[in-house]
């Protein structure tokens, strides 16, 4: 069996002032390895013990600042870079909206980092044995006494001297604390059946409660008041109207915002004569036309308008856009085909706005000119 080793001498005091004086004396006497234990934190104790300023604050500062920065970058990445969606007409990077997130992330990570650093680095967890555990001294200082402990490891430690010193300070219950090498270094098992059983029970309990709350309780009256509202959902029937439809038709002749009725439906010739391309020929217009042509026209007409369809014969190939007929058509006539459709080609009005159609017409002219250049183009 291993021997009992002396850990240190302890003494108890009755008031915060007396323990502070004792700590001052111990520090000025040159003791380095001593500690005080009080039921609650005493301001000014670090000064009395001549302790250097704690380094823990730097951990909070560094973690707090870096997580604030991380929160800014994360919010920037999420809402302005990776998935930019305009919300409420705000700029993609709108700082005021991020402030609560930055604040929460900073506070949370700084406090967790501070506590974990304190436990893991300063308190050296998971080392869970300590000579003071279970001593009468510890029971006292946890209730209403103020205790001082001078460790045997201290260079100036000398049993008789320390005893005398504590007596001079006015301590009571002066007693030595011993420990057992084996007992101290004994690592308690974390994966005990009792502990695992408790963890499992906790997990079962919390998930069960969450399941019942979210899936059962919220569907029972009166907690379902958010779900069961006195309103009509889309596509549902109504008892108010005679026809039973919950959704109402707009008034006859209603026109949607931004919608212009097409005046030349079924009148290709009139459209060709009357409609004029309102767009100027410019780089941006042609680029828009190319984009729309490549997306909507090229699957059948081909990228060059020669009818080189990519549909592998599932539809009959359309005639070339470079024919004499199409080249001599007016812009309005082509616009009419896109708007109203022709033969097997459907209308593209739902896919393309008027502006996009006119831009596509300009682009078709570019394609035509490329295959049938004029004499003047070659010079």
């Amino acid at each position, binding site marked *: 069996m291993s021997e009992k080793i002396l850990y240190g001498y302890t003494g108890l005091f009755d008031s915060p*002032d007396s323990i502070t004086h004792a700590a001052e004396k111990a520090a000025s006497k040159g003791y380095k390895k001593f500690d005080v234990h009080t039921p609650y934190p005493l301001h000014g104790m670090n000064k009395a013990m001549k302790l250097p300023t704690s380094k823990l604050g730097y951990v909070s500062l560094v973690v707090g600042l870096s997580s604030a920065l991380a929160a800014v970058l994360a919010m920037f990445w999420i809402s302005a870079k990776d998935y930019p969606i305009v919300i409420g007409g705000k700029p993609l990077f709108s700082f005021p909206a991020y402030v*609560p997130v930055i604040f929460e992330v900073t506070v949370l990570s700084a406090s967790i980092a501070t506590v974990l650093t304190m436990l893991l680095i300063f308190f050296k967890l998971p080392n869970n044995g300590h000579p003071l555990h279970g001593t009468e001294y510890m029971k006292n200082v946890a209730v209403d006494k103020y205790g001082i402990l001078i460790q045997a490891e201290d260079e100036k430690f000398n049993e008789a001297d320390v005893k005398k010193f504590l007596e001079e300070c006015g301590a009571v219950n002066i007693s030595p604390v011993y420990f057992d090498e084996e007992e101290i270094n004994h690592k308690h098992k974390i994966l005990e059946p009792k502990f695992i059983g408790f963890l499992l029970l906790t997990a079962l309990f919390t998930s069960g409660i969450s399941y019942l709350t979210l899936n059962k309780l919220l569907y029972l009256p009166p907690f379902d008041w958010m779900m069961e509202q006195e309103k009509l959902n889309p596509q549902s029937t109504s008892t108010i109207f005679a026809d039973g439809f919950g959704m109402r038709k707009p008034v006859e002749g209603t026109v949607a915002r931004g919608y212009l009725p097409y005046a030349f439906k079924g009148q290709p010739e009139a459209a060709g004569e009357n409609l004029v391309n309102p767009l100027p020929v410019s780089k941006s217009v042609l680029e828009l036309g190319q984009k729309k042509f490549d997306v909507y026209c090229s699957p059948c007409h081909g990228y060059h308008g020669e009818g080189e369809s990519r549909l592998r014969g599932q539809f009959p190939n359309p005639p070339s856009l470079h024919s004499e007929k199409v080249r001599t058509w007016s812009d309005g006539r082509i616009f009419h085909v896109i708007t109203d459709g022709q033969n097997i080609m459907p209308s593209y009005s739902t896919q393309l706005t008027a502006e996009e159609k006119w831009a596509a017409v300009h682009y078709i002219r570019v394609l035509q000119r490329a295959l049938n250049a004029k004499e003047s183009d070659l010079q």
Partner: protein
Amino acid sequence: MSSIHNAEYQKRELPKKIQTIGLILFGVGLLAVILGYVQDSTRAAFNNIILYVFLASIGLGSLFLVAVEYLSGAVWSTPFRRIPEFLSALLIVLPFVLIPVFSNMSHIFHWMHPEVVSADKILQSKAPYLNSTFFIIRTAAFIFLWLVFYFFIIKNSKKQDASGDQSLTKKNIKISAVFMPVFAITISFTAIDWLMSLEPHWFSTILGVYYFSGSVLAGLAAATIIIVMLNENGYLVNGLNSNHYYSLGALLFAFTNFWAYIAFSQFMLIWYANLPEETFWFLQRWEGTWIIFTIGLIFVRFVIPYFGLLSQPSKMNPKRLLVMSCWILFAHWYDMYWLAMPNYSKDGVLFGWIELGFVLFAIGLVMLLFNQLAKKNNLVAIKDPKLQRGIDFRL
């Protein structure tokens, strides 16, 4: 055992120069105020409103601190509770401060004009609350209520100096408990009446809390300035030390953060919802040179006091605490100016001898009032049962 302090308080006369300087400031200020009213009565009346909300802040904030001490049973502030008690005497002055405003009201509040109201649907629906009669009744009733509580609490506290009767403390606890809800409601409606109704179309449900946070800061800062100066020169009891200073500084720091929290909440919700009937108030404060003043508010009222009071020594060192309290009191005036003045001077910040005159008037008034009360009364509640524990207070 615990060190023995000398709780015996020797009353000393305050130096004569307080009265002299107070009189000079008050006189110069009063002259500027009168000349201001002669030259530009609307501008002077706006300044008068700032003066009113500023003095009401200090008075009400101080009375709140006194009541909180009674209610929470705090001991650390008992040795210098007299200072906020004296400062809350500003409530007596409030009706006199308001007289010139009442004679110029229609220049300030455009909801007081019947022809404006009849042409404005929103003002019509607000008319049951926002009308001259009810406005004056409200203001008078609030000041009356404050004075009632002021007289009862202060009278009991002074009585205790002579009799040492401990039941007076219990009485004051009961009065303070009644005062709290009255205080909460009246201070909110004061902010609504005198600050929000300058722009009757605008509304912000948090403005009352905003004004409350600033008021506590103002009362606390004013008290801290006086406490530090008196204690450093030995006019208070022996034994007040860095523990007491630290507590004052920590409370100032806490309410600085509280103000920032409330101010940002007000801004962010209005900014997020983006409703034109709310945002225009901030846009007014974004116009011309106001933009600098508005951004300056963040630094003056939050960033500078925050870093100024963050470290432990800054709260324990009397000099640094004094500087920061002066700054916070200035910041409160800055804030009140920011709330009221853009309604008068829409193009930009306006600061001239009229504004300066009102500030000098306020400082002189507080000095004279304090000097007068300090002559008649003890600066320490000498027979308060909590006094010795307050002196022995350790963090």
